């Protein structure tokens, strides 16, 4: 079989492990180009580990991650950073840094010792701050922002990196519901603007609503993948999350909406 229109980012035969603990074995995964791919599954199913491997944060014990046809670790690290960005689960805010300075750090892979602040850098930072709606916060100290604002600033930093592929490790954790939606809407905008987005999420309903491609994992294996409406069934939810549920159509988005079975059902009185 000739190589099909190979996706830019994929992993083949991945065995992923921390020290001696094997998290996933012989995993094959493909991130469709220009998709908004969401990886989901119960705690400790290996979803963040898979994302970290795709972002070259974790070296696979076996197998390889490919970016644009090359083994990702064979490419110069800075070159990879111009094509693939990652928003880690948690990063440390440097003491006393302003929003602009933090976002500007996203330009690192485009800079050299002698070329530290080109017009392109400046334009990318301005645009990233506009897209994430943090322009008014430009001179504020990041430490003093709210959780939602801070997450938008980290996203702006990742955007300033100007990579066609952006990976996000649980970008909504620690945010309240309105900030979760705000961040996910932003991700959807970025996807619509042509980026390939890959996110690890916790909330199945949010995953169904935003993903164009869903990867469902359990115990280090991919159980199902595809368009949410095509794969999310009560059987799948029972198999993956050990949860009995009913699935209806989300009245807002038309995507699958999971309603967990209630402990005490409402009985309609006649």
């Amino acid at each position, binding site marked *: 079989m000739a190589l099909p229109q190979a996706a830019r980012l994929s992993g083949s035969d991945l065995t992923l492990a921390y020290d001696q603990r094997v998290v996933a074995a012989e995993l094959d995964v493909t991130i469709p180009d220009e998709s908004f791919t969401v990886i989901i599954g119960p705690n400790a199913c290996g979803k963040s580990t898979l994302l970290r491997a795709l972002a070259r944060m974790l070296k696979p014990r076996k197998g390889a991650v490919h970016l644009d046809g090359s083994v990702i670790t064979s490419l110069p*690290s800075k070159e990879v*950073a111009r094509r693939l960005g990652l928003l*880690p689960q948690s990063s440390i*805010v*440097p003491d006393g*840094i302003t929003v602009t300075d933090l976002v500007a750090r*996203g330009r*690192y892979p485009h800079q050299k010792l002698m070329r*530290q602040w080109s017009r392109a850098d400046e334009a990318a930072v301005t645009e990233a701050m506009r897209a994430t709606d943090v322009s008014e916060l430009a001179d504020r100290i990041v430490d003093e922002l709210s959780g939602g604002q801070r997450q938008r600033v980290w996203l702006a930093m*990742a955007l300033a990196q100007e990579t066609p592929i952006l990976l996000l490790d649980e970008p909504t954790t620690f945010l309240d519901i309105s900030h979760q939606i705000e961040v996910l809407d932003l991700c959807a905008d970025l996807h619509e603007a042509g980026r390939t987005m890959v996110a690890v999420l916790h909330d199945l309903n949010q995953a169904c609503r935003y993903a164009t491609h869903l990867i469902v994992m359990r115990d280090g294996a991919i159980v199902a993948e595809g368009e949410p409406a095509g794969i999310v069934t009560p059987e799948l939810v029972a198999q993956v999350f050990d949860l009995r549920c009913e699935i209806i159509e989300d009245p807002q988005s038309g995507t699958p909406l999971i309603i967990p079975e209630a402990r005490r059902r409402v009985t309609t009185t006649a």
Partner: protein
Amino acid sequence: MSLRFGPWSVRLAPRALVVGLVLVLVAFAVAVAAIATGEFTVPIPDVLTALFGHGTPVAELIVGKLRAPRVVTGLLVGAAFGLSGAIFQSLTRNPLGSPDFIGFTAGASTGGILGVIAGGTALQIAGGALAGCVGTAVLVYALAHRGGVQGYRLVLVGIGANALLLSVNSYLLTRANINDAATAGAWLTGSLSGRGWDHAIPVAVALAVLLPVCAFVSRPMRMIEMGDDAAKAMGIRVEAVRATAIAVGVLLCAVATAAAGPVIFVALSAPQLARRLTRSPGVTMAASALMGAVLLTGADLAAQRVLAPTQLPVGVLTAAIGGAYLALLLRKDRH
């Protein structure tokens, strides 16, 4: 604020530039004052002519042979301690990650004391300090290493090593004969007295070699302060940068300790003072080096003059001045 010439461009922090310039001027002023004053006062114009080689014979002897080497050693050692402190505080993301707290300086002391007890020459004592510092660093690094070195592990292992080495040092002092113990005790406080060009030159050479390396790793190090994943995502080879930075930091600390003894607190306070003055995020290398130079020469000047004619070892003063100033700045931080 940014500066662009054709393909070259840098982003400038005006405040950091001003602070840097002021520190250079202060260092120069302190150096001239230290050279001019003492038991025999040399007028400042004579200091300047003697420095540039056209002074009277007496002025040239006092300036060129006696005072200038001491001041220059102080400037260089201070800068080396400041840089070393900046590197380790950045790597460990912790002000307590300074070489004087994670065992490196204590290891240098062990080497130095052994040199004194063995009846070594000044050069051999310096060599012992160098070996002790590098040896301790290798050991701490190896013990803290677990598939890469995490900052907090380095601090924890280092604090353990520090405690162990301090007790070894005390033991060695109790076993030494009284003369050796007195010599070692004086060396342990850290002092610039009697330092000649042969002390200054090794530090100058080390700085000349290591400063470009510092310039090269300082930007990636600032990124690593945001976390290993964030830095790797930006295309930084975190372990390579960290290993290079550790090597540079240890060498600077070792060379400085060999020249002036384990002067404490400069490596801890210089980067913190520099950071607060420049108001820059994270640790700044250049300002830390300048601050270290100012702190050490300033402290040495004070040590010679405060209780004149009694001469104090500079280590007594660095702790006092650096500590007091840092406490003041921390108090201001609280608003």
